């Protein structure tokens, strides 16, 4: 009978006629659209059939093993300078993890990751300086104590909308710097020096890489539990969660505590890496690079920010000669990604890995 093209023309023409549309109105007649379907192997691996054969198991395991083994073997390939850079990149990765967790799973944009670093670092430095405890003691204690301090500081604004959290978390690193300088406590502008460092460079790196891997997988596990489900629903519609009888403030507090645990660990680690704490631990660098790493790496996937941090930190090291150009560059990358490609790198890769697409006629 009628060919498909003629049929299509008739249908389209009839459609136009029936609605009486004017000629000036441009109907976007798309002849084809992109259809995305999950790959068969992805569907099989979602349940028990993941154990069906080596192929399914490797589909699940290979990306994760590549990540873990890659991170663990990179130190063997680098020279001394870049190994130091890797340590700092690990700290930024922890911060990016905490930012992504808070922003995408709880809906709180934390513009002041530097506060976590500073509080963890200062508590570790003070414990080491005043009491002389070794890094094995100060780092865990500083992680927990710093997290408690950060949560208490951010507590008053957790009852309110997310914008208050952004404002308060932005203000607090800068205000803490002003207070420290003004009251000249905790070493003032010079900071606290002559702290204990780690025995050798291998201990440095593997400690932070281990921490990154453990936090990444722990957070991944956490957001897939009931706790994570409640947090995600707080982000989407908090009135509904409240109507279910769940206390929003207590869940937000727990989420901020968990996120600040990773940040404060990074701060305590950084203090013992350099053997020094100062007000530069509250620098704007620690606040903006995790955000740029998260947006570039893919908000929502916890792996993306980690990878973004490991990409951006060496890049910023390479640009060290240009001074403040690094921060301008992070912000430009951030704005470029957030306006033009908000899904980020990891979401794109995930989509390509899990789904295949083809053009289909409309």
């Amino acid at each position, binding site marked *: 009978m009628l060919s498909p093209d003629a049929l299509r023309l008739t249908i389209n023409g009839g459609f136009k006629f029936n609605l009486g549309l004017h000629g000036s109105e441009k109907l976007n007649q798309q002849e084809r659209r992109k259809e995305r379907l999950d790959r068969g192997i992805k569907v099989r691996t979602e349940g028990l059939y993941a154990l069906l054969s080596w192929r399914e198991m490797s589909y699940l395991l290979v990306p994760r093993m590549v990540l873990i083994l890659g991170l663990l073997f990179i130190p063997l390939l680098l020279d001394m300078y870049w190994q130091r850079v890797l340590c700092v990149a690990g700290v930024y990765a922890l911060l990016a993890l905490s930012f992504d967790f808070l922003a995408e799973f709880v809906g709180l944009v934390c513009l002041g990751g530097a506060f976590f670093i500073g509080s963890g670092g200062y508590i570790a430095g003070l414990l080491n300086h005043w009491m002389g405890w070794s890094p094995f003691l100060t780092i865990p204690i500083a992680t927990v104590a710093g997290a408690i301090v950060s949560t208490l500081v951010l507590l008053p604004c957790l009852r309110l909308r997310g914008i208050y959290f952004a404002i308060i978390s932005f203000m607090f690193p800068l*205000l803490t710097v002003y207070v420290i300088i*003004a009251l000249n406590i905790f070493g003032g502008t010079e900071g606290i020096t002559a702290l204990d460092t780690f025995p050798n460079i291998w201990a440095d790196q593997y400690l932070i890489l281990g921490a990154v891997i453990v936090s990444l997988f722990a957070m991944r596990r956490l957001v897939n539990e009931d706790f994570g489900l409640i947090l995600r629903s707080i982000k989407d519609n908090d009135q509904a969660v409240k109507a279910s009888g769940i206390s929003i403030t207590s869940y937000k507090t727990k989420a901020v505590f968990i996120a600040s645990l990773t940040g404060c660990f990074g701060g305590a680690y950084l203090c013992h890496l350099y053997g020094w704490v100062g007000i530069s631990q509250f620098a704007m660098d620690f606040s903006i690079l995790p955000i740029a790493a998260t947006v570039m790496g893919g908000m929502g996937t916890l792996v993306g920010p980690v990878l973004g941090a490991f990409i951006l930190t060496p890049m910023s090291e390479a640009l060290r000669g240009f001074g403040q150009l690094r921060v301008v560059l992070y912000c430009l990358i951030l704005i470029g990604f957030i306006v033009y490609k908000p899904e980020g790198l990891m979401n794109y890769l995930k989509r390509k890995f899990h789904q295949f697409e083809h053009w289909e006629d409309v």
Partner: protein
Amino acid sequence: MMDILIYGTVNSVVFALMAVGFTLVYGVSRLPNFAHGAIYVLVGFLTWSFVHDLKLFYPLAIFLSVCISSLIGALIYRLVLIRLRGLPTSEIIASFAVGLIILEGLRLQGIGGFKGFIGPFYTLPSFIDGKMKILDVLIDYQRLIVMGGGFAIIASLWLFTHYTKMGLSLRAIAQDEQAAMMLGIDSDRAAIVSLSIGSALAGLAAVIILPLGNVVVEAGYRVLIYALAVCIIGGLGSWAGAVLASFVLGFAMILSTALFGAVWESVVLVGAIILILIFRPSGLLGKQKELEERV
């Protein structure tokens, strides 16, 4: 006593000038303009460059800088923020990033011959030099101009939003966006206008206040912190609240300086914010948003 009163008023007007631009933008379009402090400092440096490098007439330089600041505000909305409306996390991140680009960009050195603005070398000349005595308190003319100019700006803002069509439409969008859009007020256009006016207010604040001291990039962060503190204490989005809160905060800081010494100013600021958030979270005058504030 009298000098606390007069200097407290000057301080309060300074805070009010810094904060009213941010409150305007947030009240109208729920956009936190984290680039507020950046525009403040940018206008200061632009005026300095116009006066020193291009040798322009001072009032002309001021006029040009304020116009450029409002243009930058409109551009920030049109190029970046308009694509992110409705995504609160992305709006916050993007405006923060724009602010940082401007602020850290002013510190750049050696890119294309641009020497960064570093160091306490940049000052803007006062409008009128000299001092006078009011009620036994020695005060210089620039501070009086700050006070007078601040009152004039706030009064003209009040007149603008109450008696002109554009101002009334901004207030309409601030009160209820859906109803205003039903009446034909375009919310994107209102956002562009509010961002231009907000940035112009930041620029005006800069040219009035900066002659009192140096122009440094750190002032950008400081101004943003003060503006945010005033807005939180007064209620985000409430214009009268911002003015009231600026008086509260200004007098609190002057009193703490007089009684305890200048080092406790930041502590007072932190304490005031935390107190307000605990006892009256919507701010002093943030009454209409009470239901949405508390979660």
